[in-house]
């Protein structure tokens, strides 16, 4: 056991940072993209076939690119944006772009589900279009939106370890550098345990919050 504890804590810290920062970005961007997808959907608030087709195609395209390939594809973009392609922050653009389409679809579906009945209910009481969105559909979808961001966060945590393999740091990087490259099985196991604990905690927190917000 020649590896210092600080290596683990540092790696865990990096994983937490990457996951939470990217999940936060994905929450904001996914909410916006998902809302626009919903609005322009044929059953949405302001149907627009062409806008929807374009956004939907982009969303599906980015969702279908495997994350490792997305990472590599985004290297030039990341270099321009952050002047580096190493370290946890350098992973954020790829993590955000990988997670946003995934969450946007969850948002779109949640809004469509609530909108089916509540859209016209809002209008029937004289709500303006933006009020239907902000006062009815989003508050009513909140439990689904929180549940969705939890699932997305877990996926993003998984992505961080792939990013780790190409130099982003974090637990994935640790497991790769020591466990794989130097044949230290024990490091791999401890890194795995830490990762699993982190994800369990995130899942638990998400479920708790969903339950608190939901009145079903």
């Amino acid at each position: 056991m020649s590896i210092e504890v600080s290596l683990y804590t540092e790696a865990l810290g990096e994983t937490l940072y990457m996951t939470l920062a990217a999940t936060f970005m994905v929450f904001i961007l996914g909410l916006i993209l998902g809302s626009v997808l919903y609005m322009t959907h044929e059953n949405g608030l302001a149907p627009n076939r062409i806008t929807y087709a374009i956004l939907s195609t982009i969303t599906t395209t980015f969702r279908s690119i495997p994350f490792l390939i997305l990472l590599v594809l985004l290297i030039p973009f990341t270099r321009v944006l952050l002047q580096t392609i190493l370290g946890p922050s350098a992973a954020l653009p790829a993590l955000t772009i990988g997670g946003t389409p995934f969450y946007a679809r969850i948002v779109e579906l949640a809004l469509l589900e609530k909108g089916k009945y509540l859209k016209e209910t809002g209008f029937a009481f004289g709500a303006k279009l933006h009020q239907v969105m902000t006062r009815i559909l989003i508050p009513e979808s909140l439990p689904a939106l929180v549940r969705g961001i939890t699932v997305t966060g877990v996926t993003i945590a998984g992505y961080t370890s792939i990013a780790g393999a190409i130099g982003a740091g974090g637990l994935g990087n640790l497991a790769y550098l020591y466990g794989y490259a130097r044949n230290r099985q024990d490091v791999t196991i401890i890194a795995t345990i830490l990762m699993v604990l982190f994800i369990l905690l995130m899942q638990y927190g998400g479920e708790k919050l969903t339950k608190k917000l939901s009145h079903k």
Partner: protein
Amino acid sequence: MIKLRGISKRFTTKNDVEHALFGVDMDVEENTIHGVIGPSGAGKSTLIRIINQLEAHDEGTLDIMEYKDVRQANKESTRMLRTKIGMIFQSFNLLENKTVYRNVLFPITLFRTPTKNDRAYALELLQTVGLSDYMNRYPAELSGGQRQRVGIARSLINRPKILLCDEPTSALDQSSVKQILSLLKKIQQEQSLTIVFVSHDMHVIKELCDTVTILDKGEAVEKGTINDILLRPKSEATKLLTETVGYNIDKILTDYHIDHTLYLLRFNQKAKENPLISKLSETYHVHMNILYANVTPTHEGVLLIDILGENKDMVLKDLHEKGVEVTHVN
């Protein structure tokens, strides 16, 4: 109060154009309950949604109160009109994440921060619908009937003149249906509301409505008072509907294979008080065969009889003098 003239509506789907409504005329008088009934796909939901412009019609004019030709109105004036028209729905459409009290107050919050008066009125409405004890519950904790009562309270918070009801009892069990109907009747009288009630169920319409429009395949095939519709249906669609509540005289005639004239008697309140039939039978030495009897929604007695004997004409004359309306049927 509400006047529709030549209202048409088409829906364009990917492959073709579907007609939902063809030149529908309809009049709803102030302070009455008007039913819209027809089989599914007849265009009932579309029609009621045109009244508050959740759907815009393609042709025709719609006047509501002082609002003339509302399709031409700007967005803001349509919004104002909507606050004067309450609406309740088949699936209740309550906000699941808000308490019963917040649901009732919700339409107000779209326009202003609720005042003390608004909050007091919300409580008053909850009392009217019998849910004062449930004000801090969430909709998921309530039964279907209770949820619809929240829907009714919510629809009244803006003190509307008109209430639109889109199949509000279709998702409810029998006893809840009764409660909701009597609640609507009570509220209609207390607040002098004008109600438009859409249903596919003649039992419900018969129970509640003063006047009726029958829709079939997008056309208004018949309209009139509930009694006229029940007793003298003209169109095939109407006959099918009245049959479901046991009012299809034509069908009764066919079933009995009667080849001579029968008499349909309609007793008003006063005529109901005397044992007319047995007295007449005694006085004029005739036999009367009762083929059908019913009470209309407005509590008029209806009797279909066959008169056997010499003094038939005198019986009819006497009935007429006693205030019984006699119609010859054959």
